[in-house]
């Protein structure tokens, strides 16, 4: 390999970052947006009334499920919590002969690549705060970004998670090697140089990396931990006859609930909910599962939410559905399991208050900028070398433009589709997602066809236009526009509209800077030619 350790690590840093940089950029950006997934969902369904209190939500859910899912063998109730606005219900329908077909408000939970037998598919309904089925426009909302950042889309879930896992592992390597190769990491941080071409990109890459390096390390490592049992399945199978035995030893083995065939009315879930909250010392409850509802053997499971503190979540209580008696007390999991839970909480940030959530968001943006600047840096440095016309370099340049500019455009198109598609449009959520990919594809084509020197300026102008127009679009398409939100201190709607405006203004300002440089004939900020010694300077500062 290389003669010096640092050179080897530099090689590994460069290639580990480049090969998966585009996927990582998408994962980081959508994952960052997912920190506000509930707020985004709220913005995308402006018709929804205020959410119900948890107790009301539980009672409403039971009433709805008894009417619409009486023959089901399992109900799942996801409570709205502090930030949610709907109560989400899932159930597996009984065979068609036993129950009425799902009503028009239910939305089957499906992915295009998943094929399940018809009788195994879950039905879904969302209840608004008044207990009726939510009549708001159908959308995947912020949940789409959340799922996309580890399940991607148009791919089988298992494949997608492996791809994301491999990319995350390479990201971790890039972070470790990045720390190794930047000997003067803090000195570089304080010597940020503007308008120095590639040197500025290197400084920008260093700055976004150093600024939030603990966050980058944490988020990457804990991201791997969230899907650890999948990635390290070989370690489990090497030590246990089956993964079920491993989990049984680790988490305890809840006996399966078998229906007795004797119908007994289910106790009021609201009452069980209150009992459980007392049992859990007032902790929030996020999930209720009812096994065999309406049967004498019914069991109600309640799971603690992970929203209270970093270490919260995971405790489960089981009650008899016919009598309301507590079947098991909440016990603490083994320490390694508690640590795993804590690391997952650290990644998901559900415990974070608004201020901390904004810090998560800004750190995530810094991570996205770090990946983007690293990709551009690779391309910009190579532009000065003799092999710059190589097809690989052109491909990287197009992918850089198509991804770094394309993803933000895709996100904007997703929001535009939400406001522009007719409310009764068939399969509306899917069409919003088609809008997302159409925006991405459009920018990929644009970066392929546009003059490389003008690509970034024009791309940023396009981004500025679509983001600055989004609050306007919201003004004309809903009654929750920015003026109304600010007047009524509705910070969810106002915050998202303001973020659109700020994003648009940042893109516009950057495009103006690029325009000035192009006009003055100075060195192109991104894709222009560079002097040979500039690469050496960059390399020297890297060491």
């Amino acid at each position, binding site marked *: 390999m290389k003669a010096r350790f640092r050179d080897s690590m530099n090689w590994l840093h460069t290639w580990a970052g480049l090969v998966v940089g585009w996927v990582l950029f998408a994962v980081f950006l959508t994952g960052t947006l997912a920190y506000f997934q509930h707020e985004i969902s709220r913005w995308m369904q402006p018709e929804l009334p205020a959410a119900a209190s948890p107790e009301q939500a539980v009672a409403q859910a039971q009433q709805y499920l008894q009417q619409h899912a009486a023959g089901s063998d399992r109900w799942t109730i996801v409570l709205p919590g502090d930030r949610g606005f709907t109560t989400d219900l899932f159930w597996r329908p009984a065979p068609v002969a036993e129950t009425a077909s799902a009503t028009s408000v239910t939305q089957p939970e499906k992915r295009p690549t998943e094929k399940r037998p018809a009788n195994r598919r879950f039905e879904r309904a969302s209840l608004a705060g008044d207990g009726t089925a939510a009549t708001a426009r159908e959308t995947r909302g912020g949940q789409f970004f959340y799922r996309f950042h580890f399940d991607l889309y148009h791919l089988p879930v298992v494949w997608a998670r492996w791809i994301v896992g491999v990319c995350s592992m390479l990201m971790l390597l890039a972070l470790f090697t990045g720390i190794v190769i930047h000997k003067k990491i803090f000195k570089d941080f304080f010597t940020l140089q503007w308008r120095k071409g590639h040197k500025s990109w290197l400084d920008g890459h260093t700055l976004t990396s150093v600024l939030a390096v603990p966050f980058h390390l944490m988020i990457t490592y804990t991201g791997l931990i969230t899907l650890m049992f999948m990635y390290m399945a070989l370690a489990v199978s090497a030590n246990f006859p089956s993964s079920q035995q491993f989990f049984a030893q680790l988490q305890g083995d809840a006996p399966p609930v078998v229906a007795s065939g004797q119908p007994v009315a289910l106790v009021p879930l609201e009452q069980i909910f209150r009992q459980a909250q007392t049992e859990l010392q007032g902790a929030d409850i996020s999930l209720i599962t009812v096994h065999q509802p309406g049967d004498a053997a019914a069991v109600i499971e309640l799971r603690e939410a992970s929203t209270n503190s970093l270490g919260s979540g995971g405790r489960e209580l089981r009650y008899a559905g016919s009598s309301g008696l507590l079947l098991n007390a909440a016990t603490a999991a083994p320490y390694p399991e508690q640590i795993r839970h804590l690391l997952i909480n650290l990644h998901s940030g559900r415990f974070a208050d608004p201020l901390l959530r904004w810090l998560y968001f800004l750190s995530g943006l810094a991570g996205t900028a770090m990946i983007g600047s690293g990709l551009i840096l690779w391309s910009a*440095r*190579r532009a000065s070398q003799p092999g710059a016309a190589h097809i690989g370099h052109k491909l990287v340049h197009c992918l850089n433009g198509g991804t770094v500019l394309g993803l933000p455009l895709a996100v904007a198109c997703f929001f535009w589709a939400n406001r522009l598609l007719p409310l009764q449009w068939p399969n509306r959520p899917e069409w919003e997602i088609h809008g997302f990919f159409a925006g991405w594809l459009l920018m990929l084509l644009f970066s392929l066809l546009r003059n490389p020197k003008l690509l970034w300026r024009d791309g940023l102008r396009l981004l500025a236009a679509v983001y600055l127009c989004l609050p306007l679009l919201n003004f004309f398409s809903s009654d929750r526009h920015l003026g109304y939100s600010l007047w009524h201190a509705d910070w969810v709607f106002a915050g998202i509209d303001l973020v659109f405006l700020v994003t648009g203004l940042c893109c516009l300002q950057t495009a103006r800077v690029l325009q000035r440089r192009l006009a003055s004939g100075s060195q192109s900020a991104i894709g222009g030619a560079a002097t040979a010694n500039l690469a050496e300077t960059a390399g020297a500062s890297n060491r």
Partner: protein
Amino acid sequence: MKLDLSPMASAPPATAKRPWWQVASLVWRILLATVGGYVCTVALTSLSARLCAVVFGLPLASSLLSMMLLSFLLYSITIMAVFASQRLGRTSLWLLGTTAAAMLLCQLPALSGVAETLMTTGAKVS
């Protein structure tokens, strides 16, 4: 001539042909780091989990989970070590030897007994 794909180095043009053995060496190094590193990590994770289970009297599932939490760190270090090494052949032998040794040690009666107990008695709730 060493294979140099660094963007900073005064590298030959990307279009220049490289000898096949350099490409083969790079492919082997990548495979050794990714696949070999993964198997080695799994073997060392298993061995350390069984050792912890025996030494500290922990349930195997708990000790395995503890080691799995550290496994990505171990995997990263292994990959970095493979890419940093000057002698690929010696590194290959080291990695394969370590993996084989860890797998063999897992078969020692004192350590394999941890897993066998589980198999004969069935799943025990910790």
